[in-house]
């Protein structure tokens, strides 16, 4: 019986250690998330502006569609960040 108690306390200590290690790992993961979000915001703006530029060349409406799609790209970037933040919160 005494041995059993000893084993259970040792198990508890080991489990706590594992929990602590997992928490340490999430620090690096949150840095990864920060890097992820910052590029997501920029990439959508670039993609939106590029699509606008290509469409402008097609329809000969030079500055108009680039400007429109630039702002749509900004909206898409903000939505991307919003989605990832939501995904993080659900976890």
């Amino acid at each position, binding site marked *: 019986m005494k041995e059993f108690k000893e084993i259970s306390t040792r198990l508890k200590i080991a489990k706590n250690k594992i929990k602590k290690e997992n928490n340490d790992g999430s620090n*690096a*993961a949150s*840095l*990864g998330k920060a*890097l*992820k979000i910052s*590029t*997501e915001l*920029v*990439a*959508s703006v*670039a*993609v*939106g502006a590029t*699509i606008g530029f290509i469409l402008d060349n097609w329809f000969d409406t030079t500055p108009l569609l680039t400007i429109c*799609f630039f702002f*749509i*790209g900004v*909206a*898409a*970037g903000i*939505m*991307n960040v919003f989605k990832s933040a939501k*995904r993080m919160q659900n976890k």
Partner: protein
Amino acid sequence: MSLNPMHQFEVYKIGPEINLGGINLSFTNASLFMIISSFLILSLLFFGTKKKSLVPSKIQLITEMSYTFVAKMINDTAGSSAKSFFPFIFTLFMFVLFCNMVGMLPYSFTVTSHIIVTFALAAIVFIGVTIIGFIKHGFKYLELFVPKGVPVVLLPLIVIIEIISYLSRPVSLSVRLFANMMAGHTMLKVFGGFVISLGLLGGWLPLSFSVALTGLEILVAFLQAYVFAILTCIYLNDALNLHH
């Protein structure tokens, strides 16, 4: 020449020039370092799984850890239905990780600091995930662009925004990896240049910076491989389980 921080990213060909139908297929230093990292991965896995002892040796431990790390990541982010994509994600993670890590060695070449390499990897992921989504759901996959509960007046705008956000995936995936690796290596080289130009008197401060930056760069090298793999898992999850 050696003080130019961008000199390290130069691609030059090794051996003869090979031209196949107007496409330059010469063997370059980039291809050499890709082969080196693939070879390192293969030898790690070969020697790690050779002697399957119950108490693992160091190399077996590393192999098992990388396996469980990726398996847990897939299970956590993409669910059990993505288990069949384990080989692909494991290969992707190990390749990016080893390319980054081999690039940290002095005199080596960082393959992932070139946008064409990272963009090719991201394009494979993007096209693959799109095909998987269409196979799994048919044309219902296009519902991804139509969120629920949006008023009809706003729908055209929202659909355009969703399509742009979908198209931005490969761009953000490739630019993130490429920019982090290139910026880090340029910074290392710039601080290394400061050590030489400041000489014996003032060179110690930038030297200590460069030691600290090396540590940071190793963290970034691991982190970028991790982020690349985890985003692939998230995109796979979107394709496999449409509404989450």
